[in-house]
């Protein structure tokens, strides 16, 4: 099962390595990671998405996270009601005759072209995982060249 874990940490060097180390030491891959300052600039928020092969191991990781001196709190959003979003930038190449079709498609996903040149466009979209998946599926036919995602962020 995929878990979304939010970790509040001291905003200091080395903390990310400590947090990541607890996953890597157990052979767990972090599928996405978003880190930035919170309202209090001394505190950072890390949102970590991880596939738990074994729930017990994940529970252990969460306890170990709590034990790190620089970790202030750990919240597993998986079983909580929460809002989650991800932002993606997608670079596509399209044919001129596809323009109208593309605009219509983007409108449906509340996505927009943030940079365009000839028949290349960089598209920005924000959404939940499933929306992003559908968007990317739909864009595939226009020819996707590059994709960058921020990783999920979440709030309860």
């Amino acid at each position, binding site marked *: 099962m995929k878990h979304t874990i939010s970790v509040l940490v001291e905003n200091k060097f080395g903390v990310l*390595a400590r947090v990541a180390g607890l996953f890597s*030491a157990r052979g767990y891959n972090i599928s996405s990671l978003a880190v930035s300052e919170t309202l209090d600039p001394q505190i950072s928020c890390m949102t970590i998405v991880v596939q738990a092969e074994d729930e017990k191991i994940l529970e252990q990781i969460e*306890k170990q996270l*709590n034990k790190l001196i620089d970790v202030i709190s750990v919240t597993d959003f998986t079983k909580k009601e929460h809002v989650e979003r991800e932002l993606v930038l997608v670079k596509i190449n399209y044919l001129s005759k596809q323009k109208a079709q593309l605009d219509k498609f983007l409108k449906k996903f509340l996505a927009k072209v943030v940079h365009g040149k000839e028949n290349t466009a960089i598209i920005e979209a924000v959404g939940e995982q499933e929306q992003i998946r559908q968007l990317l599926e739909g864009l595939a036919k226009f020819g996707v060249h590059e994709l960058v995602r921020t990783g999920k962020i979440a709030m309860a």
Partner: protein
Amino acid sequence: MNGAQILIECLKREGTQVIFGYPGGQVLPLFDKLYDADVDFILVRHEQGAAHAADGYARATGKPGVCIATSGPGATNLVTGIATAFMDSIPMIAITGQVKTFLIGNDAFQEADVTGITRPITKHNFLVKDVKDLARIVREAFYIATTGRPGPVLIDIPSDVQLQEMDFVWPEEVKIRSYNPTYFGHPGQIKRAAKLISAAKKPIIYAGGGIITSGAHHELKTLAEKINAPVTWTLMGIGGFPGEHKLSLGMLGMHGTAYANHAIMESDLIIAVGARFDDRVTGRLDAFAPYAKVIHIDIDPSSISKNVKVDVPVVGDAKNILGQLIEEIKETQDISDWLKTVEEWKKKYPLRYADKGIIKPQYVIEQIYEATRGEAVITTEVGQNQMWAAQWYKYNQPRTFISSGGLGTMGFGLPAAMGAKLGCPDKVVFDIAGDGSIQMNIQELATCVCNKINVKVAILNNGYLGMVRQWQELFYKRRYSHTCLYNPDFVKLAESFGAVGILITKKEDVRSAIEKAISIDNVVVMDFRVDPEENVFPMVPAGEAINRIIGGLA
């Protein structure tokens, strides 16, 4: 003051009396100031020795041990010692020099990313990038190392920071917002635990190193006597409950007593205190203690329900919680039938060995026990020697058995004995060693002799890496692949260091050699030529249920 002076001043204010270490390029400024400092500095012969000595000092005294090494190879030589302390939750401060701040990350001469290397084997570590943070960091390091579940903390200090000048300011208070260990048990959980204890018909107390760490041995005894429950312990829990007490069952697990293993398997309530249900203790997990409810008292929430499902977790300090629990328990069941059964197991499956003409290693330990009246501090190496030292010496006091439990580090015993002896100068300190292990840090004999740290080394010389040979005998068709040792002449070796060496080849000479060693005012190495193929029994094969005991005697 410069950074080096600030560091020394902080160490002194934290109560440091002795430092173990080794110099090098990136700690030159620090060593220059140590030259004038009024703290004892012990120059070891290998940095691993410094780490184990600091660890042994901490285990023997309860105070944090301090060790120092230079950057790069000095620091990497500390690593095994730091990992050893980490696995056994020992408070220790490791200080390493680092290349100058502006060179970090450049593959400078003798540079190693020491905070990176030690991240998973320290409770916490620090890289000091500015002298103005140094005093605070040292305070935090001691605070973190000694509170909650203790552990080693490393401070990496670039040599230019050691030279930076600044006025000394002692931070009166340490406060780390994200670090607040729980010390008292939740009253609701204490009530629940007391209720289970009151209802139990076959209770057993399973005590670990947490008893020693928190100084809960009196409370443990009071609780055991109040509820009349037999007590078993882990390797780390040795000394937490008097070995000679009538409720004592000895150590449990892979090389535990048969009666301790039978008792925990048949129990209906396990009161686990400061222990972590390690695989050497539980054996096959799904077969472990099938009838038992479990109360688990531990300061570390991540230890709870990690391996065994727990019915009543109580997070906090063992001493406090046992105190709370003793107050809370009002009545208990009549458990005389249970105690009778346990007594029968004790009679039926005692620890024993076949005493033949040659020296049996168990006999040597028994004789050390008798000669020291159980009052020595015993350190061990790793292997059969360690298990025999755990089984055949009766420890009645905490901090008298010092052994690398979690990591099982060969080469631990001698430097640990050195640290222990410095911490407890009035005690007789024995390192019970194997002929293999002793050669891993034998150089520390020089440190001992130089500084008149008169430890006694008893080598159970079986000519083998005995514990590995035992597994090869039992599980690999006696194919003794690379476990037979060609050994130096330990007597001459000892003498070359300026210590006294004694060779013992006959059983009748064992006791007198031990007594002689104790009476000699020097470091003594005893080379006991013991039965080369003696095995440690009882034994539970790895991965079996812990009542599947082999060894013929049980």
